[in-house]
């Protein structure tokens, strides 16, 4: 599982994506819109509960499907 995450993150980094934050609504739509207006491409990654630190799981559990990790890269 952690290996899956690591390889996904590595692939994103190789493609030039930079991790910004992990967040849910209503902030998520807001920052996606703002990054796009600043000339960035945005990629949203779904997070998995078993990939989180133990101490964070309790808070993310109830909205795991809604919280995404935001990656950005400058438009070519």
């Amino acid at each position: 599982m952690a290996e899956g995450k690591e390889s996904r993150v590595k692939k994103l980094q190789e493609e030039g994506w930079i991790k910004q934050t992990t967040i849910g609504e209503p902030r998520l739509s807001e920052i996606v819109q703002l990054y796009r207006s600043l000339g960035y491409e945005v990629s949203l990654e779904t997070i998995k509960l078993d990939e989180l630190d133990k101490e964070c799981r309790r808070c993310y559990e109830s909205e795991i499907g809604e919280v995404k990790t935001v990656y950005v890269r400058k438009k070519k």
Partner: protein
Amino acid sequence: MKKEYWRWPEYRRTVPGKDWTMAEVVTTGVDVGAVSSKAAIMVDGELYAYSIMRTGANSPDSANKAVNWALEGTKMKPDDIQYIVGTGYGRVNVPFANKAITEITCHARGANYIWGPTVRTILDMGGQDCKAIRCDEKGKVTAFLMNDKCAAGTGRGIEVIADLLSVPIEEVGPMSLTVEKEPEPVSSTCVVFAKSEAMGLLRKGWPKEMVLAAYCSAMASRIAELLRRVGVQKDFVITGGISKNVGIVNRLEDIIGVKALPMKKEFDPIIAGAIGAGLFAKDLYEKERKDA
């Protein structure tokens, strides 16, 4: 009744020496945050009156109360306001706003108004989130970074610790600076875990100021990382409630090696977002009038 140590002062203010009845444009910015609601009444693009209060369970109601309180004693009525912009976590819940604008955008514009065009980096330390923002000389956002969805390292965390240690929230920062030797930071700023860690330290016999120093230090480190990632460029300013906590601000400045511009006496840094929203309201109102 149990004393609420977390409770910060709610207040309103009218800027002296201004006459709104002669104004061409009266606008309002309403910033409904997760913890506090702020309203800034702007007269011809200048701050005229404002209010800062706790956000209640109902965001539209909090927005309404904040505006009405800001107007109190001014003889201005809600109908005298020509354009309203809502911002903040609950900005979509400002039913009477003409438009909603993101708080990142509004904070940058508000900081530019408060401190001037030399501001390039803004740290907004709010109740439930923390944002590092870079802007140009006009207060336009050029880059930003927000903390992860979590109250760790935010104002809510400080409120919880203040209550746990029975220390009034305004004294948390100054008391944390009274330690002779800086303790190791707590290992987590997670509200849930820091609370149990702080309780453990108290049981070990740590005095309150040591526990507060350990917590403020951990928060400063967490926030410094956010700033490091976005890159701090001078002039650097801090907005939001935690900007008043010298225990965090001083430690943060030490870590990043940059001093924030001092707070301006006439502007509470908590209302930067509401001011920015009020300024956008003026632009939008004038544009609508021109287009009509």
